[in-house]
């Protein structure tokens, strides 16, 4: 059975190779090949899952060692895979949602002449992401980690003729590279501390290392997670990444890749458990991002950017939960899975809306679309109810658990974290309701564009709506399914560990408080956007609104400090190289040249003067010899 693990990765990888090298011959069939191979991967995943369920909880980990990747004296990296319950969860999510989004893209990218390549990139992404979650050592994980970064780069910049897309892609890759620096330093620290960086040996030896070292490793892993999962302070790329085609936003920048940071932290739980300081920083990062993303999400008029803010915020929840230690690991992953369903669904819905609205993204130019796009409306609506935590739907269970776990942290910390997560729930309800109202309710606000084309909103084709329906199904029932009989907890506990903690308030109280926040959020949004007509041009807004629209000035900060500063630095270094380093050399050359120019004048070309110097020299020599004799 374990021999199948490599096939999970090989299938989409094959697709990527075939589609990218296949040339125009495959333009007609390429998307089917891509979708098929993603589905094959999902099929293998399901088979492995069924097999895994058949075994006892302690005996579920499968490993496959292909060969030694990098063998150098003590530094042994294997091309080896490990499939346990945690990886399995991700495999199903990645290949499952991945396949759905492949199907969706068939319709969405129908009119794009480079559709074959798009599917090649998507397959590449699926392969890299599977490698990331299946690796059994950190170096191989790093391989997948950068692989998804590459796929993300290629897909964000898919419409390369738009300078904004190319810039956004470059930005995403660069910011991720900063995070990758953290991951590589973490691996180096592990190597010098433990002499290995394979999961098993490292986690087994954690007890022997000093806490300071573990904290350092933990912080470096967190830096990596921040980059990939768009957490403060490396969050700035996610909003721009919405330049990519919408299926990409759904798959990579909502459901799977951005949650890799959560995976990394949960996977390295053993390290974090032994380093409380690092955990504290994780929690703080999660809490800050949770509010940051939520606030940004409130102010954006671009439907995808609003959803991107929401993604950031929801991942903040997950990171926070992961930082809580064994109390939160399971719920972080559970929220990750449910979020994968409803956020992918929401993005696909947004894509469907854009598809029908001539690629308009400004929500202020939507309105009343529920009449024109009933399927989209219903699926998006279910996703909406799930994300705000409407009782009974997926988000309700998973988010509620995180809030409870935050309180269960105990002490002042617990109260603060609990408060933040509750506040976040309220803001989530507000901005999602705003998105819902602006898009589907109210009066129609669209106008003909500059060329006089008026959008004709219409429902999207079947290939797009079916994935949306399936994801909506997941958004509704996944949470309940996981929660009944604590299925998810029992499933993951052997890998991540679990302790219940002692919440200072009862679960009922937390749920009630969440409901209050939810109603408040929805109410305020209804008051602002539901009762009165929405202006097509955005009002100037308060200081906070303006700041949030500009992503709380983080891009401006980056621009001034990093971009401008960097430009000055490189320019001055180019100058230094040319004038100083090269100048010294050229200066030496010039002075030698000058000296020889002067010496040259001695050679005036007259045979007589040479003869004089010869005679003079001879005379001096003879005189000197005689003088020496005499003395």
């Amino acid at each position: 059975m374990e021999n199948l693990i490599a096939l999970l990765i090989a299938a989409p990888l094959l697709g990527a190779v075939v589609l990218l090298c296949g040339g125009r011959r495959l333009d007609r069939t390429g998307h089917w090949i891509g979708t098929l191979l993603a589905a094959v991967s999902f099929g293998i995943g399901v088979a492995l899952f069924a097999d895994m369920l058949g075994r006892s909880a302690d005996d579920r980990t499968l490993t496959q060692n292909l060969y030694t990747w990098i063998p150098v004296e003590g530094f042994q990296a294997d091309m080896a895979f490990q499939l346990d319950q945690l990886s399995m969860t991700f495999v199903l999510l990645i290949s499952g949602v991945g396949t759905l989004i492949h199907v969706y893209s068939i319709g969405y990218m129908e009119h794009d002449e480079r559709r074959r390549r798009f599917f090649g990139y998507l397959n590449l992404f699926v392969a890299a992401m599977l490698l990331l979650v299946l690796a059994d050592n950190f170096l191989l994980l790093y391989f997948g980690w950068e692989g998804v970064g590459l796929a993300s780069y290629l897909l964000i910049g898919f419409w390369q003729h738009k300078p904004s897309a190319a810039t956004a892609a470059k930005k995403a890759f660069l910011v991720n590279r900063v995070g990758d620096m953290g991951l590589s330093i973490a691996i180096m620290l592990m190597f010098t501390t433990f002499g290995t960086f394979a999961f098993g040996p490292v986690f087994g030896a954690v007890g022997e290392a000093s806490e300071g070292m573990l904290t350092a490793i933990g912080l470096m892993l967190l830096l990596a997670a921040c980059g990939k999962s768009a957490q403060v302070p490396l969050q700035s790329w996610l909003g721009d990444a919405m330049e990519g085609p919408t299926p990409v936003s759904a798959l990579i920048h909502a459901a799977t890749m951005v949650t890799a940071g959560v995976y990394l932290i949960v996977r390295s739980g053993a390290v974090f458990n032994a380093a409380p300081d690092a955990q504290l920083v994780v929690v703080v990062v999660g809490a800050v991002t949770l509010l940051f993303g939520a606030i940004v999400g409130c102010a954006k008029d671009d439907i995808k950017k609003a959803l991107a803010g929401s993604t950031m915020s929801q991942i903040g929840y997950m990171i926070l939960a992961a930082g809580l230690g064994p109390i939160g690991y399971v719920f972080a992953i559970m929220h990750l899975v449910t979020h994968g369903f409803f956020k992918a669904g929401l993005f696909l819905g947004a894509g469907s809306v854009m598809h029908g609205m001539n690629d308009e993204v400004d929500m202020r130019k939507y309105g009343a679309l529920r009449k024109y796009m009933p399927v989209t409306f219903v699926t998006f609506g279910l996703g909406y109810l799930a994300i705000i935590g409407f009782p009974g739907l997926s988000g309700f269970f998973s988010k509620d658990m995180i809030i409870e776990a935050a309180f269960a942290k105990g002490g002042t910390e617990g109260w603060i974290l609990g408060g933040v997560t509750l506040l976040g729930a309220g803001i989530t309800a507000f901005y999602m309701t705003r998105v819902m109202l602006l898009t589907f309710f109210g009066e129609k606000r669209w106008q003909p564009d500059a060329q006089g084309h008026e959008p004709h909103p219409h429902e999207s084709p079947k290939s797009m709506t079916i994935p949306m329906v399936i994801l909506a199904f997941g958004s509704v029932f996944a949470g309940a399914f996981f929660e009944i009989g604590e299925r998810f907890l029992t499933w993951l506990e052997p890998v991540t560990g679990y302790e219940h903690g002692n919440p200072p308030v009862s679960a009922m109280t937390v749920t009630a408080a969440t409901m209050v926040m939810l109603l408040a959020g929805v109410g305020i949004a209804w008051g602002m956007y539901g009762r009165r007509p929405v202006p097509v041009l955005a009002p100037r807004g308060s200081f906070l609104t303006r700041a949030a629209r500009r992503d709380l000035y983080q891009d401006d900060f980056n621009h001034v400090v990093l971009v401008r500063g960097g430009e000055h630095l490189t320019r001055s270094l180019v100058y230094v190289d040319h004038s100083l380093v090269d100048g010294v050399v050229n200066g030496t050359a010039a002075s030698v040249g000058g000296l020889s120019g002067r010496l040259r004048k001695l050679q005036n070309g007259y045979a007589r003067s040479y003869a004089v110097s010869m005679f003079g020299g001879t005379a001096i020599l003879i005189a000197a010899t005689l003088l020496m004799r005499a003395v």
Partner: protein
Amino acid sequence: MNPVNYLYLAALLFTIGAVGVLIRKNAIVLFMCIELMLNACNLAFVAFSRMHGNLDGQIIAFFTMVVAAAEVVVGLAIIVSLFRTRHSASVDDASLMKL
């Protein structure tokens, strides 16, 4: 007769030749001055041969004459071709190699 007098004569002839090389521009005169110096040396060699009573000096004098003859051939050829191209036998005019 005291052989030393021949050495004085040789030194005198050599000096005349050397000064001639240093101050004259005409290639032919230069050339003759060089010959003069060579012959001065020859004279000195022969004189030494006489003073020391062996034949070494005379043999070297023959060598010098052979070399001088060869030199005359090459040197005159150069001067003639120089004169043909430049219509002057002045050594200062041959300055093509000068920077």
